[in-house]
């Protein structure tokens, strides 16, 4: 058994919030570079080059990549042999977000009540997803999520008879409807199967998979490649101003589902697909 003090969780999450908002992961950086080289539209290419410049400035001057530094989505994968001491884990996570967003000059974008809409002024609470795994490690993923793209995300409760063509059509519909609003080039996270909430969570988690990795299920891998190709032929392009780069990746996760259902969730992320990962 391993004992972890929750103060270490706070410190780690604070650092990860700051890191994720200023630096993309190597796979995202590479995908954006490749896109700038291959984009056919001159304006699209210019925009992709400006995104490169933006990333360089963000890292050098410590200015967040995007002013929407997101709602802090945090995946906590906790080994069942881990014991926490030092107080509430939930409070430790939120304290990390509070410190990261305050000390890191990140924008506070959270309102306390969805209808009364008063800003909490420290970007808490975070959206925390706990998962119990085996072993004695804690894997933390901090994925700040901007709402330009979050607002364009969709859930479709399809029928089994809709089949794979229905699923592909739903994903393409979501992407086309999102268009320029979602700050393309996008990353498209998809969850297929499970229940209403399970497919949404799978779609969110799919966004944290490296954009250069595919599903290990052969037919899903094929679907990811086919959809990416189709999305990049919609013409939407960088910034929605026309081009051949509309998405950088389609990442699909699946799960068993009910005999009567075929849930599909499409979680769209902009080109600032942020996440930091650390294991304690």
């Amino acid at each position, binding site marked *: 058994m391993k004992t972890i003090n929750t103060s270490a969780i706070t410190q780690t999450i604070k650092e990860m919030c700051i890191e994720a908002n200023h630096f993309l992961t190597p796979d995202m950086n590479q995908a954006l570079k490749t896109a700038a080289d291959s984009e056919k539209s001159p304006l699209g290419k210019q925009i992709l080059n400006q*995104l490169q*410049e933006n990333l360089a400035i963000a890292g050098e001057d410590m*200015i967040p990549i995007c*002013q929407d530094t997101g709602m802090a989505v945090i995946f906590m994968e906790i080994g069942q042999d881990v014991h926490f001491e030092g107080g509430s884990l939930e409070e430790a996570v939120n304290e990390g977000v509070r410190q990261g967003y305050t000390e890191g000059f990140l924008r506070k974008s959270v309102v306390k009540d969805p209808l009364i809409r008063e800003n909490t002024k420290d970007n808490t609470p975070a959206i925390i997803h706990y998962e119990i795994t085996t072993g004695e490690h804690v894997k933390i993923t901090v994925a700040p999520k901007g709402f330009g793209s979050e607002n364009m995300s969709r859930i479709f409760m399809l029928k089994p008879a809709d089949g794979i063509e229905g699923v592909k059509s739903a994903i393409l519909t979501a992407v086309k409807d999102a268009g320029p609003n979602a700050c393309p080039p996008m990353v498209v996270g998809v969850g297929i199967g499970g229940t209403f909430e399970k497919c949404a969570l799978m779609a969110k988690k799919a966004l944290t998979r490296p954009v250069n990795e595919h599903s290990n299920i052969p037919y899903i891998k094929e679907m990811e490649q086919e959809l990416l190709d189709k999305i990049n032929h919609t013409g939407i392009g960088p910034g929605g101003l026309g081009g051949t780069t509309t998405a950088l990746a389609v990442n699909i996760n699946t799960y068993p589902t009910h005999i009567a259902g075929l849930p599909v969730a499409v979680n769209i992320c902009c080109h600032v697909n942020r996440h930091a990962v650390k294991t304690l």
Partner: protein
Amino acid sequence: MDKHIKAPISNETALSLSAGDYVYITGTIYTARDAAHLRLSEALDKNEALPISLENNIIYYMGPSPARAGRPIGSAGPTTASRMDKYTPRLLDLGLKGMIGKGKRNEAVIDAIVRNGAVYFAAIGGAGALLSKSIIASEVVAYDDLGTEAIRKLEVENFPVIVVVDAKGNNLYETAVKEIIA
């Protein structure tokens, strides 16, 4: 075509811009997003004076991240414009001449742009660090309690935008995509 314009923007300048023009703005613009638009709308409902003049001005749909010491502003890219659609035609009818945001506008906004000889620009979404370099001064002028959503007066220098909807109603989001898939 690359153009350099001054803000506030004159009626003639607004009419001279065409969808697809790459424009560099220098001068004074104002920020306002969801919460500030709601307050402006409520003030108009109550026949109260607005905290800023709309006449020939440009509103930038933007809520910045906090500025580090010695800098005028933090990250400062555009937010999605369609959330302001509900309030926009009324502001255009009162003299607002330009808007900077990202994403599609509805028919009512496009009609009001044409009716008033105005213009809708897009700035590059998700390029807030880069765009912040074209902002040389920032000052909260209204609704300070809204934090990032307060109305700010910005001094900008060669702030880069693209004309998406011009005063004739041409819409780059539609034409550019058609051109690529043609």
